[in-house]
C-alpha cells in the first residue's frame, strides 16, 4: 500500500529560531510528504508523544541554541523506551562538526547543517524510509 511519508518537524527546547523549521516543513510538503509542525518550545516527551500519536515515519528536530547534545539524544531515548524506535530521527541547526559524530552515536540518523538544500534533505528522508521497509 502506498502512502505519503509522514514527517514531524519539531522545535525542542526554548529556541525561537523557526525560519529553518518552517522552510523545511513547507519544502517537504512540496515534495509530497505529509508534514506536521509542532511549533516552538516542545519538550522531548511532548515531541515523542506527538510523533507516536500522528504515526509519523520521521522526526526532524531543529535547534539553533546549542542545546542539541542534550535534547536530540533524549528524543531518541524516549522513542526506544516506548518501542517506537522505528521512527527515524534527523536533526538540523547550528551544530558543530564534532557534535554530529556524537549525535549519530546516540542514534540520530543524520544532521543537516546550514547550507544543506531542502532537496538533499528530502532525498535522504525518502531513502532512509525506504530502507526501513515502509512503502512510499
Amino acid at each position, binding site marked *: 500500500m502506498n502512502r505519503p511519508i509522514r514527517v514531524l518537524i519539531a522545535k525542542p527546547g*526554548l529556541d525561537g*529560531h523557526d525560519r529553518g523549521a*518552517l522552510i523545511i516543513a513547507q519544502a517537504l510538503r512540496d515534495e509530497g510528504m505529509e508534514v506536521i509542525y509542532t511549533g516552538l518550545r516542545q519538550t522531548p516527551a511532548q515531541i515523542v508523544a506527538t510523533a507516536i500519536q500522528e504515526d509519523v515515519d520521521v522526526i526532524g528536530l531543529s535547534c539553533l*541554541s546549542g542545546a542539541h547534545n542534550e535534547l536530540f539524544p533524549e528524543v531518541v531515548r524516549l522513542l526506544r523506551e516506548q518501542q517506537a524506535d522505528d521512527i527515524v530521527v534527523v536533526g538540523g541547526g*547550528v551544530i*558543530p562538526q*564534532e557534535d554530529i559524530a556524537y549525535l549519530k552515536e546516540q542514534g540520530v540518523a543524520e544532521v543537516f547543517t*546550514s547550507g544543506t538544500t531542502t532537496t538533499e534533505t528530502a532525498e535522504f528522508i525518502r531513502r532512509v524510509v525506504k530502507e526501513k521497509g515502509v512503502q512510499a
Partner: protein
Amino acid sequence: MENKSAKSRWEEKTVRWLEKAPERKQTFTTLSGIEVERLYTEHEAREEWPGEFPYTRGIHPTMYRSRLWTMRQYAGFGSAKETNERFRYLLQQGQSGLSVAFDLPTQIGYDSDDPMAMGEVGKVGVAIDSLQDMEQLFAGIPLDQVSTSMTINAPAAILLAMVIAVGEKQGVRPEQLRGTIQNDILKEYIARGTYIFPPQPSMRLITDIFQYCAEHVPKWNTISISGYHIREAGSTAVQEVAFTLANGIQYVEAALEAGLEVDQFAPRLSFFFNAHNHFFEEIAKFRAARRLWAKIMKHRFHASNERSLQLRFHTQTGGSTLTAQQPDNNIVRVTLQALAAVLGGTQSLHTNARDEALALPTEESARIALRTQQIIAYESGVADTVDPLGGSHYIETLTDQIEQEAEALIKRIDELGGAVHAVEQGFMQREIRRVALETQRKIERGEEVVVGVNKFTLENETQPPLLRVNPAFAKEQIAALKELRATRNQEAVNQALARLKQAAAGTENVMPSILEAVKAYATVGEICNALRAVFGEYKPV
C-alpha cells in the same frame, strides 16, 4: 534642453554597446525587489539638513565628526563570572558600551532548575537566576560610566530592576544609569519567540516601564523597537522598516492610552535594525526609516520635543547572512554590512564574528569583529563627513522608494487595526514566511549566489576551533540557586511576590513591587510565575 539631448545621445550609444556587451541579467533588483536602473541621472530635490527634521541625513548636525558611534558587542555565555571576564576583556580592547546576551531560560522566565530549561542553561547567553548573578555580572564595572544594553523582552522589568539594585549597591543612583532594555514584545510574537504573556498584559508591562523610567531612570532607553529579528526571520528591507515602525506606532498608542504625554516617553524610544547584504539598499533603508519615523511622530502624534522625532538606532550585521562554509569569508561580509550601517548613520553597532554560523564566538573571533569597526572608524575616513552618500541619485531615489513602500505597508497594518491585531491575525508572520521561502528557493536554484555555499565551494573543509560552554556549568548554576533559596529570607520573598500579584491584578505600576522582589532575591522564574498566575501565557496563532 541640452542635458536631455545628451542623455538620449548616451542612450542611443548604449543600445549599440549592448549588442556587444549584453547585461548579466534582464532585470536587477534589490533584496526587497525594487528594480535597479542602469544609471541614475536625477532624484527628487529636497532641502534636508542633518540634525533637522526629518533627519534623513542624520540625527545630529555633525554626526561622527563629533563622536563616533558606540561600539557595542553583544556578549554572554555560561556563568555571570565568565561573562564578566569577557566584558572586561572587550572594554580593555576599546569597546565603548556593553551588550548583555541572556540565556533562553532567563529570557523566557524559567529558573535554571526548571525542567523546561533542560539543555539551555548558559547556552546562548549568561544565566541569570537572581540578583546574586547580576551582582557578579557587573562586578568591577561602574554602572555610572559604562552604558549597558540588555537583550531582554518579556522579563525586561525584572532585569531592569536588577540593574537598579546593583547600581544602588555600587553607590550609583537610578537617575545616573544609562542603558537600554530591548523590551519589544511585538517582534517576539512575530519573529523571535521569547514571549511569555499574552499581548495585552505585555503591553501594560511595557507602558509601566515607560512611566516608571520617565520618573526614576530618565537616561534609560526604555525600549529598542527591533527590526533586526524580523529581517533575520526572512523579511525584506521594506518589511523590516514597515513592521518595526508599525510596532513603534503601537507602543506610542499604548503609552498614550495609559495616560502618558508623548514628549514624556518618546525621547527614550530607540530602534534596532539589521545590516544585510545589499549595500545601497541598506544605507537607503536607514535614511528612509529616519525620515518616516520623524513624520509619524510629528504629524500623527504631534510630538514637539526634537528628541521625540529622532529615530536613534543600534545596528547589528545580519546573522543569517553568515555561512558555516569557509567562515573567514564572513569577516568580509561583516565589513560591508558594518560600512552600510555607518554610512546610514547608526548610533551604535555590533559586528558579528566570523564563526557565529557554527557557535558562539571565540575570544579571537570576537576581537576581529571589534577591530573591523575600529578600522572603519579610524582608518577608512568614512566617518569624517556627514551622510557622505546624500545627494547620490541612486541613494536618494532608493530612500524615497523604501519610504513610500514602507508607508504603504504601514497603512495596511493600520487597516488591520494596528500591529497587535496584525500579529494576532498572523499577518506579519505570513508575509515574512513567504519571503523566507522564496529566498531559500532562489538560493537553491542558484539565482541568489552565496559564496562558498552554492558557488565557489571547497571540498573537505575543516572547521576552526570553536567556543564551547562548559558542560558542567548547568549543574553548578543549579547548585548555587538551591543554596540561594536555602539561605535567603523566604518570608520577605513570599511577601514581595504576593504584593506583586496584587499590583499586577490591579492597575498600579508593577515596577516598585518587582524591584522589591528582586532585592529580596526572588528569582526570575518565581517573579515570572507570579505574573503568569495573573496574566496567563501566550499561545501562538
